[in-house]
């Protein structure tokens, strides 16, 4: 996998995440698709296993660094790690599933996004909830304002919306897949 191409697409997809949200969110609900998740799933369905794991970790970490949580002292804080680990788990599931499906079909990208998204978001929410519990126990002023049930509902709609957007996005990414330099297995057609 060409890492410069990955870096370029990661930059563009993260900018889409942070910039297009007001336009794409449904009403005032705040439900918006995650382009970073779509990119992670698409790379996980196409790339070599070892590179996919690192790509998922990096993408998840970038999502962590661009997500801010309000704390009880009125500040906004960033927590590194939850989405990095969540994306790694999501990528691992995609790697397991990709040999069962026709990966180049755009609908499959949508389907994999739904499944892998759930696998990525639930552990991330669990870790953030654990962090909240630990900090609340320490009576710290850096406790994040956080309701796990709200977050799960939000994650459900985000994953569903991302799966819908993943269909055209997957089609577009399939057009430019040559840029990533993925190598197929000579006999099976699977990534090395």
């Amino acid at each position, binding site marked *: 996998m060409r890492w410069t191409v990955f870096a370029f697409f990661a930059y*563009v997809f993260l900018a889409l995440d942070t910039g297009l949200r*007001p336009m794409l969110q449904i009403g005032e609900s705040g439900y918006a698709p995650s382009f970073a998740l779509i990119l992670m799933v698409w790379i996980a369905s196409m790339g070599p296993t070892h590179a996919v794991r690192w790509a998922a970790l990096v993408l998840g970490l970038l999502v962590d660094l661009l*997500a*801010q949580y*309000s704390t009880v002292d009125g*500040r906004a804080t960033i927590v*590194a790690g*939850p989405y990095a680990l969540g994306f790694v788990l999501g990528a691992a599931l995609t790697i397991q599933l990709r040999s069962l499906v026709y990966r180049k079909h755009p609908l499959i990208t949508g389907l994999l996004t739904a499944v892998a998204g759930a696998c990525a978001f639930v552990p991330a929410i669990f870790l953030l909830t654990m962090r909240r519990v630990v900090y609340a126990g320490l009576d710290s002023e850096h406790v994040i304002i956080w309701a796990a049930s709200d977050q799960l509902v939000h994650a459900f709609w985000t994953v569903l919306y991302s799966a819908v957007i993943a269909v055209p996005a997957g089609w577009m990414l399939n057009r430019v897949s040559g840029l990533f330099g993925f190598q197929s297995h000579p006999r099976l057609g699977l990534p090395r």
Partner: protein
Amino acid sequence: MNHASPNRSFYTAAAAMLIACFLPAGFTNWLGGRLGELTIPLSAPLEKLSLAVRAVPKSLDRENPEFVKLANKNKEQEVRIYNLEARAASLQRKLERLQELKETDPSFRPVSAYRVAESLGKSDLFKISLGSLSGVRVGMLAYHQGYQLLGRVSAVSPRSATVTPITSRAFGPISAMVVSSDGNLAASTKCTLEPVGDGTLVGDVGRNSQDEASPVRVGQRVVYYDTDVRQLNTGPIIGMIEKVVPKDQNPLWVTITVRPEENLADVSVVDLKIPRAVASDGGDH
């Protein structure tokens, strides 16, 4: 054996991420602030486009010709009324702005920043185009058009800052004052409003002994109550009362629902008041 080393480095990185989940956020705040600034060149035009698209009114597609005819007629009437109302509102705002500028403390410098990015995840936080280099500090209040209270700065990096809007639950309780219709300070009532997450704020207000029949009415203005605000009518506005519900348990109190005059989700320009001393220290750009 060949893959042992790469695997080990990956698992080490994953373990580091797990530990990082529970670490204090000092370094990650710094790193995230820099990364956010890196994405601004691309996210800012996308954000501008998004806000412009949101501003386009959604047109209704009706097929019934009679309905279309009546709707068009109604539209013409509405447009006339809207134009008159808009003109009145515009003049009112100009007057308020002038009053505010007249009362503004000269030790503060008003600046405007653009909304350039949204925070990822489930939050209403957004980023603006000015940061600590321009004198922006955590805790500063953000306004829209100089008079509508928009939110509070909750994080700062050199060239961008994060704003928590007043309608976000994360903003917390807000001290406010319901301004009486005639602007009489003595008849105005203090209250505490709490954002509920649907774009409104809710709070309980005690009945005023001077006007027992209808102490608080729909349409009354609610302003931010702060000891620094010297004159009530020039303080930042939180919004207008859109609902008043009597409290069953206590007849001396009513619950009010306040909605900001502007839809804060669509605001693209944010005003801040920078202390002149801070601005000169921070190396304004």
